[in-house]
C-alpha cells in the first residue's frame, strides 16, 4: 500500500447547519462512482432514560477534535480505496430534528464507500472529543457514553 496516498478531505466543526445535497455534490469528481453518506439527527426522546429531549447542546475540545477526526479519516483512506471524505460536526445548541453530523465518502466502487463511511462514523463516536448535554423543562443531563459504540469499533480490528 502506498503510505503517501492522500485524498481530498474536508473536516469542519461548526455551529451552522449543513446542506447534505451540496456536500454530496462536492464529493463528486472524475473518478467517483459511488458516494455514501451518513447524517446524524437530534432525537426528541431519550429511550434510555424515558425522557423528552427539548434541546441538546454539544461541546468539544477545539484542536483535539480536528486532530482525532483527521487520524480516523487517514486510517480510512489507507485501508480502503476511496477518492474523497467529508466530516462536518455541529456544536452548540440543537433542537430535535436538527442535523448533528455529516460523514460522506466517495469511491470508485460502492463497497469501499460503504465500509469507509461506517468505519469513520464508528470511530468518531468513540474517539472524537464531543460531549452532549440534553435538556428539558425538568432536567439538564450529560449524555452517558454508550458501551455499544465501543463494541461497534471491534469489527474493524482485523
Amino acid at each position, binding site marked *: 500500500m502506498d503510505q503517501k496516498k492522500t485524498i481530498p478531505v474536508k473536516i469542519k466543526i461548526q455551529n451552522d447547519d449543513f446542506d447534505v445535497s451540496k456536500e454530496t455534490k462536492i464529493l463528486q469528481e472524475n473518478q467517483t462512482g459511488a458516494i455514501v453518506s451518513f447524517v*446524524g439527527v437530534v432525537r426528541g426522546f431519550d429511550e434510555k432514560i424515558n425522557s423528552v429531549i427539548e434541546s441538546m447542546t*454539544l*461541546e*468539544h*475540545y477545539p*484542536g*483535539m477534535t480536528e*486532530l482525532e477526526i483527521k487520524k480516523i479519516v487517514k486510517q480510512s483512506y489507507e485501508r480502503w480505496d476511496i477518492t474523497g471524505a467529508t466530516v462536518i*460536526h455541529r456544536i452548540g445548541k440543537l433542537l430535535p430534528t436538527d442535523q*448533528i*453530523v455529516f460523514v460522506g465518502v466517495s469511491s470508485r466502487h460502492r463497497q469501499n464507500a460503504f465500509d469507509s463511511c461506517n468505519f469513520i*462514523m464508528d470511530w*468518531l*463516536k*468513540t*474517539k*472524537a*472529543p*464531543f*460531549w*452532549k*448535554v440534553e435538556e428539558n423543562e425538568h432536567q439538564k443531563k*450529560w*449524555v*452517558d*457514553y*454508550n458501551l455499544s459504540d465501543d463494541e461497534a469499533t471491534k469489527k474493524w480490528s482485523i
Partner: protein
Amino acid sequence: MIIKYFSWIKEHIGKSEELIELPDNVKNISELINYLNNLNDNYKKVFVKKDLIKIAVNKTYCSVETKISNNDEIAFFPPVTGG
C-alpha cells in the same frame, strides 16, 4: 502547565481550565491527579471516578503513566458522546 476540563468534570471542578506550576515531584499524570486531589474535595469527587475519565496530553490520548512537564497541555474529560 495548562489543565482543561470538559463536560460534567468541568462542572464538578468549577472551571474549564487552570494554569498551575508543576511541583518538582510531579512527573506523570498519576502524580498530577494525586497533587490535584490534595488541593480540594472537588477534585477528589471527580478523580474517584477514574474509570470514567479520559486523559489527553497535548491533544493526544494518553494513560496515567504518561510523563508530563510544565509546557504540556493536559485535559481531563469523560468518554465522548458525539455523533
